[in-house]
């Protein structure tokens, strides 16, 4: 009989993935970490040293704190609105017994086939002063002056919600696995009305999926660069655009590196918080 030993098998299978992570993630991150401790000197110069100047700038300068807050605010707003919009759609896709279910799912995630840059430009056309939305509003006599949505924070939120909607739908439909019609039928047979059934049965069972959707969209939103850049009209400052500006316009690589690490920390905090929430929800749902 061939002797088997499972743990090393698993380790062996991890080797390719670890190699990718090492070369494509860990090494660049270490480089970024080292760069953050260098000193920026005027004119784009960098002094190779070991200083915490860049971190001090990030944590003591109200501007960067404001940028960090705008980023988190954008992430929270976009993720909450996206999940609210995606929830009924995901619920429908999970529950429907239609033979077109597969097609409907494909339609829901089809926007992912179009680049987010193209979709962002599409939103610029829709939200602009002479765009579709303002033309309709003017045509209906609802406004004389254009409603300012493009080049504003609100426009960025609208566009990001649409862009990340398919991601939320995918995450939520796969997270709605616990949903069981028989539980709702049991609740109905015990006299629970539609709203009670939703609040006491459906919502708790779908909460893990909702949290997954929230986390995914939050992480995507706080790292979004193109949409805030294009639709924000240069006045929506988020960490991703600030990192780009520091690195390519002001050539302050140490500060760009420090800001990148802040973004990684925000990611880490978000993943940890959502992980804890997810565990609590799991425990609550399973009654343990």
């Amino acid at each position: 009989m061939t002797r088997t030993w499972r743990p090393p098998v698993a380790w062996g299978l991890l080797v390719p993935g670890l190699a990718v992570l090492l070369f494509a993630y860990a090494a660049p991150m270490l480089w970024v970490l080292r760069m953050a401790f260098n000193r920026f000197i005027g004119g784009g110069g960098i002094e190779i040293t070991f200083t915490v100047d860049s971190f001090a700038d990030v944590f003591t300068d109200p501007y960067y704190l404001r940028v960090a807050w705008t980023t988190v605010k954008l992430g929270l707003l976009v993720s909450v609105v996206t999940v609210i919009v995606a929830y009924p759609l995901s619920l429908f896709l999970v529950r429907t017994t239609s033979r077109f279910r597969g097609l409907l799912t494909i339609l829901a995630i089809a926007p992912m086939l179009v680049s987010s840059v193209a979709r962002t430009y599409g939103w610029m056309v829709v939200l602009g002063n002479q765009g579709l939305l303002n033309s309709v509003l003017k045509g209906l006599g609802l406004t004389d002056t254009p409603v300012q949505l493009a080049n504003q924070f609100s426009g960025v939120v609208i566009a990001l919600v649409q862009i990340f909607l398919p991601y939320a739908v995918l995450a939520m439909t796969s997270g709605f696995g616990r949903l069981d019609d028989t539980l709702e039928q049991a609740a109905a047979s015990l006299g629970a009305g539609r709203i009670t059934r939703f609040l006491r049965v459906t919502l708790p069972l779908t909460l893990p999926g909702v949290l997954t959707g929230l986390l995914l969209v939050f992480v995507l939103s706080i790292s979004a660069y193109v949409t805030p850049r294009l639709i924000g009209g240069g006045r929506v400052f988020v960490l991703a655009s600030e990192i780009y500006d520091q690195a390519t316009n002001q050539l302050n690589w140490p500060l760009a590196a420090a800001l990148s690490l802040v973004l990684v920390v925000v990611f880490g905090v978000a993943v940890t918080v959502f992980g804890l929430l997810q565990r609590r929800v799991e425990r609550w749902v399973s009654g343990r």
Partner: protein
Amino acid sequence: MSHALTRRSALLGGLGGAALFGLAACSSSATGSSSKTADSGSGDANALTITGFSGAFADQFQAEVIGPFQEANSGTKVTYTPATNSAELLAGLRTNTSKATYDLVIMDSSVSTTANSEGLFSKLDSSIVTSLGDLVDAAVIDEGYGPAITIDSLALIANPSVFDTLPDTWSALAGSTYKGQLALQIADTRGIALIAGLSKELGLDYKKSIDEQLAQMKKLAANAQTFAPQPNLYDAIRSGSVGAGVGWNARAQALHDESPKELIVQVPQGLGVAQISTINLVETSTKKDLAQKFVEFAISADSQQRMAEKAFYGSVNSTVKVSDTIDARTASTTGLLADDAPIDWAWIAPNYADWVQRIQREVIGG
């Protein structure tokens, strides 16, 4: 029968996967490097690679300088790779100090002075670049290093269907007429140039302080619809999505000729701000002689005359003679910049990042 893998087969599988990944990485890296350095690093001694600005400049430079150079030097192949901006070019030069990706780099003079000081560019040999002696004063940035290749000026630009005339000063853009109609892409060289323009207009010295200039700029910013017009300033104005803005004269003049009903341009009299782009020899280039031959061709009277007449750039060569009509539309020292004190880009270079940051915080973000 057990389906579990043996330790040996799993490790072999894992290592095989890793080896495949490694091979793929090496192969893609090799492909990437060969395509990137086919230029300067290739064995073809007659192949030259240049990088510089994208968009209209790239088109005009290829048509008016690169094309004629290749015709005059049969067998020579010049590849032009457009870049996003000068800062990106400097970043690229810093990360490729051992092996040249490009032989020549065209960039803002405010950035090239930094690259010169870091030893990223070489001094030119005046026995090859003989036209160095014909340069106008403003075209000599760092003695011996890459000279100016174009001179341009900050300008006011508008869509005539929104504003049929343009004002005589930069500050006039703060007027209520322009409310919600301006595109001000000022968190870059344009903003720095606008500080210089406002300094002239308000009688201030930017070497002492830029506080008042920024305060004035903030009044202009109150009328801004956007600080990042899309797809770019000129097309945003031509489409009418914004009414007016601050941009570069040469490109706007060329676009005006293309579609006069969509774009008008004006440099306020006596308030022009020279923007100088330099052509620089990369220190690690392996084709320095050919590269310098190209520099000589680019700053020669013939090339400069073509760039002035077709692309509206002020000539860097003092021997160039253009018609009065062209002269009046280009940023030359006898044309649009006739009465203007030159802006000291070398002095500004170390302050560039700080100024852009202040514009971003105090003008746009404020």
